[in-house]
């Protein structure tokens, strides 16, 4: 158990140091483990939908930059809710390109948003895995 908790603490520390998730993520848990878990799941499904929509919109002959900006701001908002600071920053960069109707800038920044999202989800997966192991071993989060 000590081993697990130490791994958990190390993981959280490295994630915070890389600024992938900030203190807002921990604050989710203050409302209860179930609430944090539900919010993260909701974020995940909302983010997947947003990323699919962003990709589809940028693929179009004529890009509707206003709608693109609406969707990227929505993703940014979702990211902020769970403390995904780097993802939110990447979204902000893309929003700037949308505002300037810069297609190339949007394409490049969307790729960056996707990279940050993949990184974020892999870290969240690692956190969840360790949380489940701790709970299975009789501990609590």
């Amino acid at each position, binding site marked *: 158990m000590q081993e697990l908790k130490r791994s958990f603490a190390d993981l959280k520390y490295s994630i915070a140091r890389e600024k992938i998730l900030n203190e*807002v993520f921990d*604050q989710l848990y*203050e*409302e209860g483990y179930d*609430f944090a878990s*539900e*919010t993260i799941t*909701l*974020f995940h499904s*909302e983010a997947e939908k947003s990323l699919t929509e962003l990709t589809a919109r940028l693929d179009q002959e004529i890009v509707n930059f206003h*709608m693109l900006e*609406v969707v990227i*701001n*929505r993703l*940014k*908002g*979702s990211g*902020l*809710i*769970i*403390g995904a600071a780097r993802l*939110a920053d990447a979204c902000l960069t893309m929003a700037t390109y949308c505002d300037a109707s810069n297609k190339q800038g949007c394409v490049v920044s969307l790729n960056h948003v996707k990279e940050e999202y993949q990184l974020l989800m892999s870290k969240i997966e690692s956190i969840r895995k360790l949380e489940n192991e701790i709970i299975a071993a009789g501990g609590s989060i």
Partner: protein
Amino acid sequence: MASSKQQMHVLAVDDNSVDRAVISRILRSSKHKVTAVDSAQRALDLLGLEPDVNMIITDYWMPDMTGFDLLKRVKESSVLKEIPVVIMSSENVPSRITRCLEEGAEDFLLKPVRPADVSRLCTRMMMR
């Protein structure tokens, strides 16, 4: 009014489902009744039907009609204008905040909204 109500009916307006879920959860855990809608238009439709809403909390940035537009519509209505409206935004833009407050917003909260912000707000509302 002689006694303060313990439970409020709050109308939460946000096009982002994650935000809606979080704000609803925070309000419900303080025992308030929450109706959550995904657009300002839906909020207006509901306000036309259910006049027992004690507070509106709305995101600023929404497609079609913004939270600011919703605020203006509420304040222009003789039926709705007494309902306090709180605006939420993830962007700290001083001119935007001032404009909302001048238009009659009760408060302006920066996202992500913390449980403490919301309970402070509700306490203030219930003391009116």
